[in-house]
């Protein structure tokens, strides 16, 4: 049996966990599921555990460009380790950037004084800011959409929570001077497509109000260490509350512009239909009559310590653990249902690491009888939004926040 077949054999959501005993500490000492059984079968077959240089083995969805997701067991910790943090690239040419020679160019027609900043200029010239924030790919859980939609067929692991250190983008822009005709700020990283084919470069823009938000950072530290190469070394954008598509890695240039930016990755890519989701943040200069760029994340949660079909002994307490997050309003409650959603009981919330961090939660119960039972979890935020009971379909498979249901076996 070769490696792929071996992993495939255990990939259908069946994991031989030992009731979570050593699981959170040693996530990869045991077989790791390639994702929920509801992923496309081709996805499960093509996935395997693989370590990029400097990284722990992660779930490989595609080799080139590299798209690797974090095994869910890592999410039992408040912060996701740098070497287990998910990796997502759109285009395959990803250079190594040397910190000593790296310069961030600040410009654009709506900026008064263009600048070039070294890593040292950034670190010494501006106030140092630290915040915890969840970085989640817009398409996290795309593979769980029914019917399936094309793209990277992520399970639950295209996200991670980290403490980011950097400087405020607004401090940098204000130093350079923003002209009043400015409408968007455009960000380009070091990655590029194959020039001969004119693959669209991965370039993103933000509306002025979000770019000038006090929490939008140019970060050069992650969990107390430099950013890993695969997560944007030497500096990346942090856009708390918003989908990670805006968190441009290996930042090379920032341009303040007077006209809406029209690159492929802004339009038509990363769009959601207008009016379907309860998002609050608008990106008006990019809206069309039918769609809008994805903005803030919808309220969501994930059970992190129970595998589908996991067995528990009768009379044994079950500790359900998980995380919950939203677009930056903060989690108000997480509720658990053991009766298919008929009644809900509040879970205990963990430490509050700030409104952009995910919030850990736990719920303990003793199953009353033997047999199969379901555990459901539902998060609500401080502005009254809650997870959906019916999946909201959209062409690119974004904002999957269907209430999760895990089946366990007692006895």
């Amino acid at each position, binding site marked *: 049996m070769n490696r792929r077949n071996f992993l495939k054999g255990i990939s259908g959501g069946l994991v031989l966990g030992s009731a979570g005993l050593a699981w959170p500490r040693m996530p990869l000492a045991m077989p790791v599921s390639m994702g929920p059984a509801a992923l496309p079968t081709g996805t499960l077959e093509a996935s395997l555990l693989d370590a990029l240089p400097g990284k722990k083995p992660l779930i*490989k969805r595609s080799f080139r460009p590299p798209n690797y997701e974090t095994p869910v067991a890592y999410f039992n910790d408040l912060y996701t380790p740098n070497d287990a943090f998910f990796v997502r690239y759109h285009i395959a040419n990803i250079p190594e950037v040397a910190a000593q020679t790296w310069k961030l160019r600040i410009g654009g027609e709506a900026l008064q004084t263009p600048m070039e900043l070294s890593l040292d200029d950034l670190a010494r010239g501006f106030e140092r800011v630290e915040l915890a924030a969840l970085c989640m790919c817009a398409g996290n859980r795309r593979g769980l959409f029914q019917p399936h939609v094309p793209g990277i067929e992520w399970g639950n692991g295209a996200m991670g929570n980290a403490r980011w250190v950097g400087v405020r983008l607004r401090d940098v822009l204000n130093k350079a001077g923003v002209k009043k005709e400015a409408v968007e700020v455009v960000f380009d990283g070091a990655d590029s497509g*194959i020039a001969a084919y004119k693959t669209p470069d991965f370039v993103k823009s933000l509306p002025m109000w979000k770019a000038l938000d006090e929490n939008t950072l140019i970060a050069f530290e992650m969990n107390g260490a430099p950013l890993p190469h695969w997560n944007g070394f030497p500096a990346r954008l942090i856009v708390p509350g918003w989908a990670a598509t805006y968190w441009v890695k290996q930042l090379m240039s920032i341009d303040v512009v007077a006209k809406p930016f029209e690159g492929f990755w802004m339009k038509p890519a990363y769009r959601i239909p207008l009016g379907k989701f309860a998002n609050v943040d608008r990106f008006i200069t990019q809206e069309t009559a039918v769609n809008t760029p994805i903005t803030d994340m919808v309220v969501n949660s994930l059970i992190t310590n129970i595998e589908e079909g996991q067995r528990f002994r009768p009379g044994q307490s079950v500790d359900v653990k998980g995380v919950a997050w939203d677009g930056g309003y903060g989690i108000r409650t997480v509720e658990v249902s053991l009766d298919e959603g008929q009644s809900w009981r509040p879970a205990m919330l963990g430490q509050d690491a700030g409104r952009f961090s995910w919030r850990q939660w736990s719920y303990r119960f003793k199953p009353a009888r033997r047999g199969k039972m379901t555990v459901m979890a539902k998060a609500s935020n401080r502005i009254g939004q809650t997870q959906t009971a019916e999946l909201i379909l959209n062409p690119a498979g974004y904002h999957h926040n269907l209430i999760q249901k895990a089946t366990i076996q007692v006895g």
Partner: protein
Amino acid sequence: MKRLLLLVLLPVTAAAADEGQFRLKEGAGRELVEANCATCHSLDYIQMNSPFLDKKGWEATLSKMVNAMGAPIAKEDVPMIVEYLNQHYGK
């Protein structure tokens, strides 16, 4: 059983994989698909996106690759590529 799996798995997870180990299914048109698609991305993208696209779905994917992503695929090669994808990785 658990212990056995643990022993078996440890050495495997330490190894690094590469895209060369991924093989598309045998069939007419495979080489054409390899030559055209692998210039920009690894071929596991194809299996990952299967089996849920029908012929129209694969045509739309090809059209996106050519028109939006700049894939240098000759027009006359498109039908055979779609045929292979639909037959081996289609719904």
